[in-house]
């Protein structure tokens, strides 16, 4: 059902040196239902990743996105796959939003052959270049200059496309962010810097890390728990960036999980705070309420969608568990595009070596 529908955002946008977009967002029943489906799938996927981690099937670091789904969903609704996205290590849902599939996600998490990086990247290093998703970066803040570089290439190649570079409130204080923004502004790069402010850089509250958090939003301030508000802001930002160069969007969002799996997420914030956000601002519940109040689906139909997503996740996990480990020869692939036939060595260099293709 694609009949037009207009919805008011929950809070107004705030803006700095630009005109804020309208609070009235164009949408449709079809879009709202797809938001619900996609966010329910992301939520389920992250909860399942949590269980896999606890079952020791996922190694190392694992950063979950539950709570922040509206940012990924709203952004995708405003842009095309010609536009580029780059983010930090909390990348599972962004990858899904770009068209990645569950088998690739779970296989990568478990270091299997069917992973999106064939098991060589892990949780923090998902990519999908055919949909202009450039990762998946493990070093806080580094993805911002890289994203401005993507925007540089888009402008250089006259692509008429933009890049969304996502980072958290922790990275917002990094020096390289300012360096990249400065150059982007000098060269009018179509870069949109999206600060996903979930209010904690690991365990350090925003106010303990930034003398002035208002520095985060030299552009548009968006309710990052409202997918429609995110969509509206991203649409606005894309037009702005193509015409005027870079812009910052600050998305007020929240992560329910700790920073990573080693963080219970409860030493630096209260349980009440988390419960409060879940009750008042949950991005999925907001869309559920909208769908119900507009009689676009029944409660049971929405429950059924959630059940269906759960089954899709379970099936993908079962399939990923069947996916074999990468072949040992993969140790030596992709070190270079062109290896010039040079010898490379395994940890036991006498026993395990290969000629790079």
């Amino acid at each position, binding site marked *: 059902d694609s009949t037009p529908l207009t919805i008011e955002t929950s809070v107004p946008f705030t803006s700095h040196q630009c005109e804020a977009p309208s609070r009235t967002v164009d949408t449709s029943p079809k879009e709202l239902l797809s938001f619900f489906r996609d966010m329910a799938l992301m939520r389920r996927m992250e909860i399942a990743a949590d269980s896999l981690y606890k079952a020791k099937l996922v190694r190392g670091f694992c950063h979950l996105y539950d709570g922040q789904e509206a940012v990924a969903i709203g952004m995708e609704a405003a842009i095309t796959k010609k536009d580029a996205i780059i983010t930090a290590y909390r990348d599972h849902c962004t990858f899904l939003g770009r068209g990645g599939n569950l088998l690739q996600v779970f296989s990568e998490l478990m270091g299997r052959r069917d992973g999106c990086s*064939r098991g060589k990247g892990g949780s923090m*290093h998902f990519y999908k270049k055919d949909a202009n998703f450039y990762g998946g970066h493990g*070093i806080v803040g*580094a993805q911002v200059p890289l994203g401005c*570089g*993507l925007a540089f290439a888009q402008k250089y190649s006259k692509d008429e496309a933009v890049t969304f570079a996502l980072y958290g409130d922790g990275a917002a204080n990094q020096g390289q962010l300012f360096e990249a923004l400065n*150059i982007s502004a000098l060269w009018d790069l179509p870069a949109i810097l999206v600060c996903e402010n979930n209010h904690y850089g690991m365990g350090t509250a925003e106010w303990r890390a930034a003398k002035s958090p208002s520095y985060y939003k030299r552009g548009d301030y968006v309710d990052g728990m409202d997918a429609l508000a995110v969509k509206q802001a991203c649409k606005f930002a894309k037009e702005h960036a193509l015409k005027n160069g870079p812009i910052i969007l600050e998305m007020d969002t929240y992560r329910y999980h700790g920073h990573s799996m080693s963080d219970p997420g409860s030493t630096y914030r209260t349980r009440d705070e988390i419960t409060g956000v879940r009750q008042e601002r949950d991005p999925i519940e907001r869309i559920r309420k909208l769908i119900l109040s507009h009689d676009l689906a029944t409660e049971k139909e929405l429950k059924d969608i959630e059940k269906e997503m759960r089954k899709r996740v379970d099936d993908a996990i079962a399939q990923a568990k069947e996916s074999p480990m990468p072949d040992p020869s993969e140790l030596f692939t992709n070190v270079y*595009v*062109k290896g010039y036939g040079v010898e490379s060595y395994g940890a036991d260099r006498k026993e395990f070596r290969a000629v790079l293709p």
Partner: protein
Amino acid sequence: APMTVRDALNSALDEEMSADPTVFVMGEEVGEYQGAYKITKGLLEKYGPQRVFDTPITEAGFAGIGVGAAYHSLRPVVEFMTFNFSMQAIDHIINSAAKSNYMSAGQISVPIVFRGPNGAAAGVGAQHSQCYAAWFGSCPGLKVLCPYSSEDARGLLKAAIRDPDPVVFLENELLYGESFPVSAEVLDSDFCLPIGKAKIEREGKDVTITAFSKMVGHALKAAEILAKEGISAEVINLRTIRPLDRATINASVRKTNRLVTAEEGFPQNGVGAEICASVVEESFEYLDAPVERIAGADVPMPYATNLERLAVPQFQFQIKHRKHDSGLFESLLTWSTLLRRLRILFVQQRGLVSDPFECGFSVSP
């Protein structure tokens, strides 16, 4: 006809920009100023501000932007005014450029060149005088090139720009103005040198000397002096630090049975250390004598002329003090002391001298 290394680099950049519209140049003072060392001279005029980008003095920012542009299939040539400043951007060189193709299982290739002067200049102190060949050379995913002559500079830079992987291209400020004869073949716009292949600059049969960048010149001079005394030295110009041409090095050592490595950088974990390890692993039974290393002193670069001369391997090296302070100087192995030692080594093997160290370090060739 002779050509300076500067002109060789400049012409290589010019030709590759002309051949491929995705090649562009960015860095501090590369445009209007014509390059801090004039390597990019004339490029802004010829290709315009759409291809030549003056950046602010913010290495982390512009190196990251360069890598991002390479992710998106452009071919950036990023100039560091000197490689000392690349430390501000090393995260993007190592973590963003070198590892992306691997981590993405081949999805995100990074065809970028980081170039600029590297190593000791003259009188600029510790923060502006350091060789990074061993640093970048230790990182898989990077290719590291070190040209010596004008032929090297042209052939390697053109190969670097055409290469699909990230290349760290280490030039030497003191070589920019030096002229070398170049053949018509080298001047051809299709001329490229193979990455990963060393060049035997001079054939010999008694001792192998490996060197790169400025030290190749020293090695050739040393070989000439040795030749007059009947010692035949083989000089290998490494050209590529990574991937290192172990085959050429080992084949040479198997022929000469002796090895001297030369570099300007710090000795610990240096390029010479890696070469030595490779020869010990592959050709140990061929060695007739311990490997000798010539490297910079194991100290930050001092400013004062006399101290700086003690810290960089000098060709002409006079030590006025004799044995009473030779303990201090014993670690400062230089070309001249090396030549002395080599002579002694060979003479000793011919049964002429019994104690190779009886001459101490009071020598100058």
